[in-house]
């Protein structure tokens, strides 16, 4: 169901049974050509997503998570090289030009961005920003579109929707703007929603409201969602599966509970441990991940996390580990000496006994 390369046969439409599989990404790579060389922002990512499921994409800056979601949609600037395939319900998005893609954007696939202030047009009233896609994509007339817009605003829990339609974005609070953005994204009933750090710019009390809203909408519409975030807390409570990205690759992927219960990749473990927890007493020393993410122009030869990994051995530095299946169903990871295994434990002990200097602090 997840992350495995499968050979998918394309049967003619009439014969194909109704499949829940919505999105299939196969070995997607996105490289930016820059004067200094080729930046491998996304380097071989594969996963699949079914209707009604939420995939959490977790990573820090430079992990490639935002580039990945834009690359899948086809929203990248010119100097980009893409490889691999992106199949949305049997349509190969990676082979389409902008004109064809436009028929998908908004209607089938939508995206919600981080900063609601820049996602909304500051000089256009809210009402028009919602009705525009309705009239353009769904061919509604003005009155129908306005009725629909009112219903949409109500469905995202905006009080006094009638008044809001006539307001401008700057007259609304951050949380409300983000609701409007979600309303616009959902206006044409897309099957797949990318939410790129939708709550990072919002207060924590508003954040939980927005995340709950997304989840509710998703269930009602049987929509698939990719939730991109850096926050493991957000992912824990609001996703069905999680994929952890590092330096352009997926390094671990599992159903959410499985991931937190038995993570294998040392990066995932280190990430979790470096977060201050409410449960810890004050002044608890935090476990840090030494060093900095690798330069995407020239990634390390072996495992990309090896320079910072407390478990790293020589093999890690020479040979890049492939995605392997773990014992639990649907769990894959990329590591030679994973956490929680005998191999891994020995490797860790070996390293602790003969300390190797870690990278310079970031």
């Amino acid at each position, binding site marked *: 169901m997840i992350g495995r390369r499968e050979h998918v046969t394309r049967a003619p439409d009439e014969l194909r049974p109704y499949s829940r599989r919505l999105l299939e990404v196969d070995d997607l790579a996105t490289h*930016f*050509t*820059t*004067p*200094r060389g080729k*930046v491998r*922002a996304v380097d071989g990512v594969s996963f699949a997503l079914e209707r009604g499921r939420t995939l959490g994409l977790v*990573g*820090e*800056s*430079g*992990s*490639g*998570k*935002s*580039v990945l979601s*834009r690359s899948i949609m086809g929203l*990248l*600037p010119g*100097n*980009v090289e893409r490889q691999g395939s992106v199949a949305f319900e049997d349509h190969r998005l990676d082979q389409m030009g902008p004109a064809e893609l436009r028929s998908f954007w908004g209607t089938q696939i939508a995206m919600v961005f*981080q900063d609601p202030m820049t996602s909304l047009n500051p000089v256009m009233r809210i009402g028009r920003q919602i009705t525009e896609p309705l009239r353009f994509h769904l061919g509604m007339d003005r009155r129908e579109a306005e009725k629909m817009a009112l219903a949409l605003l109500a469905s995202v829990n905006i009080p006094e929707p009638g008044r809001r339609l006539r307001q401008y974005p700057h007259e609304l609070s951050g949380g409300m703007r983000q609701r409007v953005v979600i309303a616009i994204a959902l206006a044409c009933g897309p099957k797949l929603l990318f939410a*790129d*750090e939708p709550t*990072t*710019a919002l207060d924590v009390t508003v954040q939980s409201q927005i995340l709950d809203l997304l989840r509710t909408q998703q269930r009602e519409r049987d929509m698939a969602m990719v939730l991109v975030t*850096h926050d493991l807390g957000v992912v824990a409570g609001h996703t069905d599966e999680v994929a952890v990205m590092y330096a352009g690759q997926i390094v671990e992927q599992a159903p959410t509970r499985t991931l937190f219960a038995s993570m294998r990749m040392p990066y995932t473990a280190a990430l979790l441990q470096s977060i201050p927890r409410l449960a810890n007493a004050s002044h608890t020393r935090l476990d840090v991940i030494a060093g900095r993410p690798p330069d*995407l*122009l020239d990634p390390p030869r072996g495992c990309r996390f090896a320079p910072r990994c407390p478990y790293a051995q020589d093999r890690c530095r020479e040979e890049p580990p492939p995605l392997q299946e773990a014992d639990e169903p649907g769990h894959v990871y990329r590591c030679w000496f994973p956490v929680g295994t005998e191999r891994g434990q020995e490797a860790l002990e070996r390293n602790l006994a003969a300390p190797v200097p870690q990278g310079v602090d970031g």
Partner: protein
Amino acid sequence: MPEPDQVAPVAIRARRRTLGVPGKLAVGWLLLVVIAALLAPVLPLDDPNDPVGSIARQGPGTDGHVLGGDGLGRDLFSRLVWGARASLLLSVSAVILGIVIGGFLGLVAGYFRGRFDTLFVGLFDVLLSFPQLILALTLVTVLATGEGVSSTRRMVVLVFALGVVSIPVLGRIARANTLTWSQREFVLAARAMGARHRSIMFGEVLPNVLPAMFSIALLGIAVVIVAEGGLSLLGVGVRLPTPSWGNIIAEGRSELRDAPHVVLAPTVAIFLTVLALNYLGDVVRSRLDVRESAL
């Protein structure tokens, strides 16, 4: 809020340090003009004011004169080189005036805001309202026309007249940039450690504002060169017989049918110089936008 992934962070980062071919050509031309202008007195040129009747209105190549002669038989090439001297001197001085005064006023307005800002912006608006050519015309006519007025005096008045208009232009650029840079937290940090306003303005803010002003200054020089041409056509440019590109054109106007090269040569010179300045102005500006971005 943690930094989100930028979509193409490295693509924006290190732009090529070297100029492209157009850039090199532009710099080459400008260097040529500047050096020729500086070295005019020591170059083996004919006297620009000495009419040699035989070459009057004769085209390029006549008798070893590279560009031929103008209406009065003076060596056109020599006049062109000396003209570069005057045009450049005038335009660079006017722009420097604009940078120094306009830059200072803009810096103060943008840094302190409040009353200073209102006052200086008002001043800029007033200065901008003067139609440049009419102002120059008036000033020159009143202060630097008539018998016994030296070319130096005319030059000074021209620098002033043309500089006055560049004050508000550069002032506004300085102000706009200062406003942005003053909002940056390193200015607040400087205040927090006890630095005085004066040292913050000139030590922290100004070095960041100057590059933007520099790129506009290059464009400004181009504008003034052309403006001088206009003034010459009105008869109030650099005072004859001292050549400037503008007044060579003005003089040559009457000979346009018989000796078009007289107008053509300085026009081409102006064209190339303005083109080079505009191009470099853009290059400088885009380079500076880039260097600031960090990881």
